[in-house]
């Protein structure tokens, strides 16, 4: 892959003229026991733009992503320092309700993890526990719309009662995406949502991201440079737990300030 193709791709990405801060992180450190996985990361996630996290394997992208909806709370050894806000409110404050936070900040995990329930039930579960649908046909509509958006509807519409785990890996991942958007969150965190998908399904997901842009703030972790260039307006490059560079995607790909960034995106290491 050459820098030029990436530049071409990134040049298409227009950063929105008006920007509202959706989430901010200031001086975030994450420790697993004594080991520091994230070191002093500060970043802004805007409502209008898609933010991509890139970086070599093990650099802490997933770890940082999980601090944004407090999923790290479930890891007993994990400890988070610093301040992260959602709409100006500290999400680690005692007054923040974690359950609601996770409904507002949805997540698609790196490994597909559908519930061992029917396809319908997988998508309907979130809206049901949050009371988003009052009647059966409301729920049917939410389920269909979410599955359509995730590009899965045509493949599963005749077998909504089949188990979600009986789908192929890529279908499972799209089911998980449908499940996340069914809750109608404000922010969607996607951890390598396309790593198990074929190019067609990947294109569908990217289309979905385009469609959702602006309506939801989106953060996506990806190992695919072209994908980062195609879908995001902002890119953050992580390396060994630190945020090396963060800026407009077009700048990162055409004109990186740091040599480490340049080496990584041109495939010289990582």
């Amino acid at each position, binding site marked *: 892959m050459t820098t030029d193709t990436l530049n071409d791709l990134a040049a298409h990405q227009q950063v929105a003229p008006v920007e509202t801060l959706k989430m901010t992180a200031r001086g975030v450190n994450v420790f697993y026991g004594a080991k520091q996985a994230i070191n002093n990361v500060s970043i802004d996630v805007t409502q209008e733009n898609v933010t991509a996290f890139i970086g*070599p394997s093990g650099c802490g992208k997933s770890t940082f992503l999980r601090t944004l*909806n407090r*999923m790290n709370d*479930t890891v*007993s050894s994990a400890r988070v320092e610093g301040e992260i806000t959602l709409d100006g409110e500290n999400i680690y404050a005692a007054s923040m309700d974690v*359950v*609601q*936070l*996770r*409904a*507002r900040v*949805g*997540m698609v*995990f790196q*490994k597909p*993890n*559908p*519930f*061992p*329930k*029917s396809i319908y039930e997988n998508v309907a*579960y*979130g809206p049901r*526990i*949050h009371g988003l649908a009052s009647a059966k046909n409301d729920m049917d509509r939410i389920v269909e719309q979410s599955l359509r958006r995730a590009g899965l509807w045509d493949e599963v519409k005749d077998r909504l009662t089949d*188990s979600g*785990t009986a789908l192929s890996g890529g279908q499972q991942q799209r089911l*998980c995406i449908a*499940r*996340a958007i*069914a*809750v109608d969150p404000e922010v969607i965190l996607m951890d390598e949502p396309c790593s198990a998908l074929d190019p067609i399904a990947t294109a569908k997901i990217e289309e979905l991201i385009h469609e959702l842009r602006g309506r939801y703030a989106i953060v996506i972790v990806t190992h695919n440079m072209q994908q980062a260039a195609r879908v995001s307006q902002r890119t953050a490059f992580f*390396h*060994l737990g630190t945020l090396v560079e963060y800026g407009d995607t077009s700048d990162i790909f055409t004109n990186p300030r740091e040599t*480490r960034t340049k*080496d990584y995106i041109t*495939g*010289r*290491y*990582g």
Partner: protein
Amino acid sequence: MNSTLVAGVPATGAEPPAPARTPTDWRGAKMQGSIRRRYAAERRFRLLGLGAVLLSAGFLVFLLWTMVGNGARGFTQTELRLDVDFPASTLMIDPAALAGPGKDAALAGADIEGATTAAATAAFGTDGERLLSDGAWLTVRDAIAADPTILRRKAQIWVPAATNIDLAAKGDAAPEDEAAYARLDKAGVTKTGLNLTFLKNADSTDPTLVGVWGALKGSLLTMFVTIVLAFPVGVLSALYLEEYAPRNRWTDLIEVSINNLAAVPSIIFGLLGLAVFLNFMDMPRSAPIVGGLTLALMTMPVIVIAGRNAIKSVPPSIRDAALGIGASRVQVVFHHVLPLALPGILTGTIIGMARALGETAPLLMIGMRAFIASPPGGLTEPATVLPVQIFLWSDEVSRGFVEKTSAAIIVLLVFLMLMNGIAIYLRNRFERRW
């Protein structure tokens, strides 16, 4: 990707070239030999496994064969036809009294036993009453109660035969009893049929009158108390320990204690039940509630351990998935973890309950070995349970108890199989629900 620059660290020097490998000869004699050995090992393992299964199946068949062989006879009872000439008898009951509320008193006041003995003497000669069960007069009484008009005529009533005659009918008695039976049989006054008494009665001193219903009902009530207590408490403890409790010294201590409790001999639980429920809490002796409580103490650790293992094996990604769309901890537990863990929990429960059902020692300690002649009416009434009943009958000297013991064992095994069957059905249902 350039491998020499992984993670930005330049390679420090070229590795020495590896010596060239000789190509593997996949079709050579050595490979063929190892393939043969592998097949042989697999055949050996299959045979060993099959042998183990056959051996245990053999034991099971032997057990069932002897039990059914001995016990099937316990379900039948020989009866004798007794001709009673009521008008000629000394019995004085006013048939009118039997219609009103004074019925029981009228029956109790009459010497039905004497009349039965007299009828037996008349029908079968001197010592005729020895051919009849001690409880034969009860059958006569019941016949009168059912139809008072027979008091005005000669009636034929089928009454249970004595143990010796019963055994002789089944071809298992002393020669003189065999002869007595042969005479009766020739006279056409014998018949052998299903022993309803055995399915209806409780314990008795006369083997022809004993029944298994008292013990069966005692077992049912006791198991009911056990499961109602042990299952929810065990499952909730397992859930709490796995999903909520912090990992620290206290929870480690609790874990060790629970594992130890599961290994404590059951007689100790009996002593505990005796000390706590009977002596300290003053609960009734021999009652199913106390038996159930004691057995629940014993079963709970088994359910907790099985439950924790089942809960542990639910993949963490399912919890993440639910938490990630904003499910609360309780919702995660009850919507996802518990349904997925339930088959495993039920397996543990089956094992625990089966053990509780067959338990004798702790129940002896809390007085459930008492002689109890009527089925328990409720949880606080004196009762015994099947295994204890079997133990008591197997200790009796009268030969009539041998087949009753085996019959009771069959009832216990059927109960056990039913209980396990229900649990396995439930387990499969939960497994298939997804």
